[in-house]
C-alpha cells in the first residue's frame, strides 16, 4: 500500500502543526498524577492525559493544519530510561499515534485528509559525543518506531536531528521495525528534519551539505529543518536544500530566537512575519511542508495555512535541481569525489600494515599520536584518510572503534575504513557520522562476501572500494587490462543492480603491482594498469578509480620512488584515475623532476626495453600518452 501522505506531499503544499511543548506547559497539569512524578516527561501524558494531548492536536487541526505530530518526541528507550520507564516505550509511542489518529479522524474529510506524523526526537545521548553506542540507540528507536507504526502513524518523522550518526542509526531502526511489521518505507515513509544551530552547523558541527550528503542514499521521503532558530536564520540552508536536495523539502522553525523575559523563555516572532518568510521558502525554494516548532501556536498555523492556500491555488513551479556532486563527508564537511584540478588524494599512513610508525602507536595505544598522524596527512593535502588497524593478535573491531571515534571528532577529513575483516569494517562504520568509503570488496571468496560488504555500504550509506580480484585460483589478482576490466564490470553491475549502490560511489581499484622487481612477469604491470584504467573510465565514466599508488616502486630507493610514483600518478591521472591512496607529501610536481629521470621513469612505466631484451614496448594501437605528456611537462 503506497502512502497517501506521500501522494499529498507530492500534490500540494501542506501545513504541519505548531509547538506541542509550550502548549502542554500552558495547561494546568499535576506532576504527581499527570506526570506520574516524572517532571518534564511530556510523553507520559499520552497514557495519563490523552484528553489534553488530543485537545492540543485538535486546536491545530481547527487552525487548518494538514498534519499533526504525535506527542512522542522522547518516546524511545534511552530517554524514557532516564525516568525508569524503559518498559513503557512501546505503549507510550503506540498511544501517542492513536490519540493523533483519533483527532485526525474527527477533522479529516475526503477533500482535506489529515495525517499523523510519528515524532522521533534526538534523545538525550548522542553517539558522536560518546554518550551512547550504535546498538543501544538502534534498539531504543526500534521500540519507539514499533509503537508508532502499530498506533497508526502515517509517517515516521526523525526530527530535531543534531548528529548525523543518530540519523543513520534511527533510519536503520525504522527500516527494521517496518520490516518486522511486514511493511516498508513505501507504506510508512521516513522523513528527516535537521536542526542547524545559530553557528551555521548542527550541534555536532556538520554543515548542511555534509549532513545532506551523508544521508542522501537512504530511502527517505523528505529532508528539512526545524527548531533551534527562527526562519530568518534558516535562509541560507533552505536555499541550498532547495537548489540541491532531490526530494521533498520541509521546514518548521521556532517562532524566532528565544529571549529570556522575566525569567520566562519567550519566542518573539509573530504569526504574520513568520508566514512572510515561510512564504518565501515555499515560493523561492520549493518547500512542500511548513509548520512551526518551539513557541508557535495555532495562530501561527492559521497564518501558514494562508501561505499554503495561496501556493496551492497557483500552479506549482517545479524546482530545478542541481544534484549534489558525488562526495564523501567527515562529521563536518563534504569532499567531492572529483576534485577540481587534482585527484582525490587518500592518505595512506594510518595503516598498521603499511606504516611502522602507525603500528608502533597502535601497539602502545597512543591514540593522540594516531590523531597527530592523521592531522599531518590532512595538512599535507590528503582529502580522505585511509584507516587500517589490521594487526595479528589484536582485536581489530575494538581498535577500529577506538581510532575512528577519535578521528571523526578531531580531524576534518572523510574516512576510508580499511580492513579484510567484515566485523572490523562495521565497527568503524558505526562510529563514523560522515559518509565513509569502505576498503574493500572483491570476488576472491565469490559473491557471498562481496555481497556482505555491499550490504554494509547500503546500511551505512557508504561508498566502496572494489579490488579487481576474483575466484580464479591461479590468476586471482587481475594483472592484465582485460581481466581488470572484466572484473570491474562484473563488480560495478552487481553493486548497482543488486545492491542499488550508485556508480559514483564505487571506487574501482585495478591493483598496482610493482614494476621494480626486474622480473619479466612484472614488467608490464604499470602499462596494463594504465590501459585497464583507460578502459574502465571509458565504459563507466561515473565510476571512481583509485589505487595504492606507491606499490609500483616497491623496493627502490626512497628518492627513486618519489620520482617514479610522481610520474606514474601523472600518467594514471591522464588515463582517468580519479583518486589514489598515497603519501601526499611524497608526490612531487613533474616540473620539479629532472628531465632525464622523468623520461626514464616513463620508459620504465611503459616497458620500453629494447626488443632484444624482450621489451614489450607500447603496442602501436595504444595512444602514446608518454610522448604527449612529456611535452606538457617539458
Amino acid at each position, binding site marked *: 500500500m503506497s502512502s497517501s501522505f506521500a501522494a499529498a506531499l507530492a500534490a500540494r503544499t501542506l501545513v504541519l502543526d505548531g509547538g506541542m511543548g509550550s502548549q502542554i506547559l500552558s495547561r494546568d497539569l499535576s506532576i504527581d498524577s499527570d506526570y506520574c512524578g516524572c517532571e518534564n516527561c511530556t510523553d507520559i501524558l499520552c497514557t495519563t492525559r490523552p484528553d489534553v494531548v488530543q485537545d492540543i492536536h485538535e486546536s491545530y487541526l481547527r487552525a487548518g493544519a494538514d498534519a499533526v505530530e504525535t506527542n512522542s518526541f522522547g518516546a524511545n528507550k534511552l530517554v524514557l530510561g532516564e525516568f525508569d520507564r524503559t518498559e513503557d516505550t512501546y505503549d507510550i509511542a503506540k498511544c501517542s499515534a492513536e490519540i493523533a489518529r483519533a483527532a485526525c479522524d474527527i477533522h479529516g474529510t475526503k477533500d482535506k485528509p489529515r495525517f499523523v506524523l510519528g515524532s522521533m526526537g534526538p534523545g538525550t545521548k548522542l553517539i558522536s559525543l560518546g554518550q551512547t553506542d550504535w546498538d543501544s540507540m538502534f534498539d531504543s528507536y526500534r521500540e519507539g518506531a514499533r509503537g508508532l507504526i502499530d498506533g497508526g502513524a502515517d509517517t515516521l518523522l526523525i526530527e530535531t536531528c543534531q548528529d548525523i550518526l543518530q540519523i543513520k542509526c534511527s533510519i536503520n531502526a525504522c527500516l527494521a521495525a517496518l520490516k518486522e511489521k511486514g511493511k516498508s518505507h513505501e507504506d510508512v515513509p521516513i522523513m528527516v528534519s535537521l536542526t542547524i544551530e545559530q553557528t551555521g552547523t548542527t550541534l555536532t558541527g556538520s554543515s548542511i551539505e555534509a549532513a545532506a550528503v551523508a544521508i542522501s542514499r537512504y530511502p527517505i521521503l523528505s529532508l528539512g529543518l526545524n527548531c533551534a532558530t527562527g526562519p530568518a536564520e534558516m*535562509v541560507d540552508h533552505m*536555499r541550498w536544500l532547495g537548489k540541491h536536495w532531490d526530494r521533498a523539502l520541509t521546514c518548521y522553525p521556532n517562532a524566532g530566537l528565544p529571549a529570556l523575559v522575566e525569567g520566562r523563555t519567550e519566542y518573539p516572532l509573530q504569526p504574520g512575519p513568520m508566514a512572510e518568510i515561510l512564504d518565501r521558502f515555499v515560493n523561492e525554494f520549493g518547500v512542500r511542508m511548513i509548520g512551526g516548532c518551539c513557541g508557535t501556536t495555532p495562530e501561527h498555523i492559521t497564518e501558514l495555512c494562508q501561505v499554503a492556500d495561496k501556493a496551492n491555488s497557483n500552479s506549482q513551479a517545479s524546482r530545478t535541481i542541481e544534484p549534489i556532486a558525488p562526495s564523501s563527508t567527515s562529521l563536518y564537511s563534504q569532499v567531492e569525489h572529483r576534485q577540481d584540478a587534482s585527484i582525490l588524494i587518500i592518505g595512506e599512513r594510518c595503516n598498521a600494515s603499511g606504516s611502522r610508525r602507525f603500528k608502533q602507536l597502535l601497539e602502545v595505544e597512543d591514540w593522540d599520536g594516531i590523531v597527530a598522524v592523521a592531522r599531518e596527512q590532512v595538512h599535507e593535502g590528503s582529502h580522505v584518510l585511509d584507516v587500517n588497524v589490521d594487526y595479528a593478535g589484536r582485536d581489530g573491531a575494538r581498535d577500529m572503534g577506538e581510532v575512528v571515534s577519535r578521528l571523526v571528532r578531531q580531524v576534518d577529513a572523510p574516512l576510508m575504513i580499511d580492513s579484510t575483516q567484515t566485523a572490523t569494517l562495521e565497527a568503524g562504520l558505526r562510529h563514523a557520522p560522515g559518509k565513509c568509503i569502505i576498503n574493500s570488496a572483491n570476488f576472491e571468496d565469490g559473491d557471498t562476501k562481496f555481497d556482505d560488504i555491499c550490504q554494509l555500504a547500503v546500511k551505512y550509506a557508504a561508498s566502496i572500494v572494489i579490488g579487481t580480484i576474483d575466484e580464479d585460483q591461479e590468476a586471482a589478482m587481475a594483472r592484465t587490462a582485460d581481466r581488470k576490466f572484466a572484473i570491474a564490470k562484473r563488480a560495478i553491475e552487481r553493486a548497482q543492480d543488486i545492491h542499488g549502490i550508485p556508480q559514483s560511489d564505487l571506487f574501482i581499484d585495478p591493483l598496482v603491482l610493482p614494476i621494480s622487481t626486474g622480473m619479466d612477469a612484472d614488467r608490464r604491470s604499470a602499462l596494463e594498469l594504465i590501459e585497464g584504467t583507460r578502459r574502465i573510465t571509458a565504459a563507466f565514466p561515473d565510476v571512481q578509480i583509485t589505487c595504492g599508488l606507491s606499490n609500483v616502486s616497491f623496493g627502490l630507493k626512497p628518492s627513486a620512488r618519489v620520482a617514479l610514483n610522481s610520474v606514474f600518478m601523472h600518467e594514471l*591521472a591522464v588515463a582517468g584515475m580519479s583518486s589514489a591512496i598515497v603519501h601526499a607529501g611524497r608526490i612531487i610536481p613533474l616540473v620539479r623532476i629532472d628531465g632525464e*629521470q622523468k623520461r626514464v621513469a616513463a620508459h620504465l612505466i611503459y616497458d620500453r626495453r629494447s626488443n632484444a631484451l624482450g621489451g614489450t614496448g607500447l603496442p602501436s594501437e595504444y595512444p602514446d600518452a608518454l610522448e604527449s605528456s612529456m611535452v606538457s611537462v617539458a
Partner: protein
Amino acid sequence: MTTDIPGYPDDYDPLQSFIALFKDAQGPAAAARDDTPKTLEERLRNHIIDGVKEGLTQSIEEALEDYSPLDIINDHLLDGMKTVGELFGSGQMQLPFVLQSAEVMKTAVAQLEPLMEREEGSTKGSIVLATVKGDVHDIGKNLVDIILSNNGYTVHNIGIKQTLPSILDALNTTGAQVVGLSGLLVKSVNVMEDNLREMNAQGIDIPVMLGGAALTRHYAEGHLRKTYNGKLYYGKDAFEGLRTMDHLVSDRLDDLESEIEERRAKRSATEEVVARSKAKQAKTAEEFERTKGETVTAIVEAPSALRLALASVPTPPFWGSRVVDSIELDSVYPFINEVALFRGQWQFKKGAMSADDYERVLDETVRPILERLKTDCREQKTLAPKVVYGYWPCQANGDDLIVYDPEDHAREIERFCFPRQQGKQQRCLTDFFRTVESGEMDVLGLTAVTVGERASEEAQKLFEANNYTEYLYLHGFGVETAEALAEMWHKRIRAELGFASEDSPNVRGLFRQNYRGSRYSPGYPACPDMSDHGIMWRLLEPERIGATLTENWQIVPEQSTCAFVVHHPEAKYFNA
C-alpha cells in the same frame, strides 16, 4: 608490434637506467631541477615556483640593490606566484606545493615589508576579505591582503569557507567600508551570486569587490553588477584591487564607473548592432517573401552622398557553386598567419622581451612546435582541407543585398540585410555593389572552407586526457589552418576574377588586406549577424564538405570559416 626507441642502445633496460640515475641520491627529496637559473630575476621567481626558502634572504638582499621592495614583489615574486597558479590550474601541481609556494611568498613579503614606505598613523580605509562558503582556496585573497595592508589599508581577513552571516558579522564588528569576496572553484561564482542576492534581500548595499580564478570580468561587470543593489567591482589581481580601494576611499568612483561603462559599451556595441540589424532584417524578410522569385521592382535608394566610384564588374568563370576537396595541405601551410597563431591562439606573448629575444624564442621553441604539427597533421591526415565556393549575380537595394538565381538572373533567391554605420561615413556593405536602379548586375563571391572534423576530434581527445598544452597547440593550429585556407582561396578567387595582379607580392601583405577588395565573415563588424550563416548555407550547401550549423549559427567543425567576397577596390574592413 613494437619498436625500439630511436637513440637508445640495443640492450636498453629502463629499470637499470632508472636505478643508476639515483645511485648517488640521498633522501627522498633528491629529485631536483636540473638547470640552475642564471639571472637574479629567474632565481627570485624559482624560489616561489619551487617553494624553496633556502637562499631566499640572500636573493632578496641582492635584489634590493637594484629594485624597490614593491617592484620585487610586483614584478618577480608575484610573477612566480602566477606560474604556480597556472600549474595548479592545469593539474600539474598539487595543493601542498602551492601552499609551500605561498609560504615562501609570505616569508619574502615579511622580509620586504619593513622596508616599504607606509603611511603612518591612521588607516586609509578598511575591508573585510573572505573566501566564500565551500571554497578553501585563499592564495589570491591573501595576496590582496598583503598588497592592501602594505598600502595602508586595514584588512580584516576572516579566512576561507565563510558563510554570508559570518561575513556580515565581520562587517558589523569591524565597521569596514568594503567587502571583498574570493573563490577559485566554479561553484564559488554561484555562491557569490547567492550572497549578493541575499544582501539585496537584507537591504545591504555596501561596496563589494570580487575576484578569484573562476570569475570573469565579463560576468562580474555584466551580470553580477546588474544583480547587486550596491556598488560592485571586479579585481583581476591584487593590484587592481588596490586601485579600486584607492578610488573607493577617496570617493573618486566616477573614473572606475566610466571605465566599466566603456568596457560594457564596447561589449554591447556588437550586440546592439546585431539587434538593430535584426529589426531591419524582419523587414527584409518580409520584402523577400513578397518579391521572392520575381523581378525586383521596388527600389530603395542608398544615401547618395555615399555612392562610391563605380568599379568595373568582373566576370566570374562560372555562376553558382563548386566543391573542391583535393587540396594539398602543403599548399595551404604558407598562408598560415604566424602572428595570429603564436600570439593569439598559442599565447606566446612578446611581453617585455626585445624583438630579437622574442624572435629567438619563436625560433627555438615555437616554430619547432609548428613544424612538428605541420608534419604530424600531414602524415596522420589530421587536417583535410576542403572548400566550397561560388559566384552569384547580385544587386544592392538600400541596405539589402539581393541575390539572384545563377541560372535566371531576374529571379531573386535570397536577400541579405546589413547594418549601416551610425554617424561617420554611414557605410554599409551594400555600398560596394551595383544597385537595382543602376540596371547592372554585380557579382558576389561566397566561400566556406574547413579543415575537417578530425582536427576537432583529436583536439577534444587531448583535452579530455587533460593534455591541455597539446590541446591548445592542435586546436589553435587547426583554426589558423582553416583561416589560411580561406586566405588561399580568396587569392584564387581574385585570380579567377582577373585582378590577382594587384595582390601584395608577399603573404604577410595579404594579412594586411594588400589586395583588391575584401572578404567579410559573419560576425565581423561590417556584418555582425551570425544568422547570415543560414542564408550562406542555403546558397553554398557546405554540408557537401562536412560543415554544418548549430542552432545558434556556429559552424561545426570549429576549424572552418566562411565569407562574403567583395571585389570593389574600396571594400575594406569597417565597423558598422
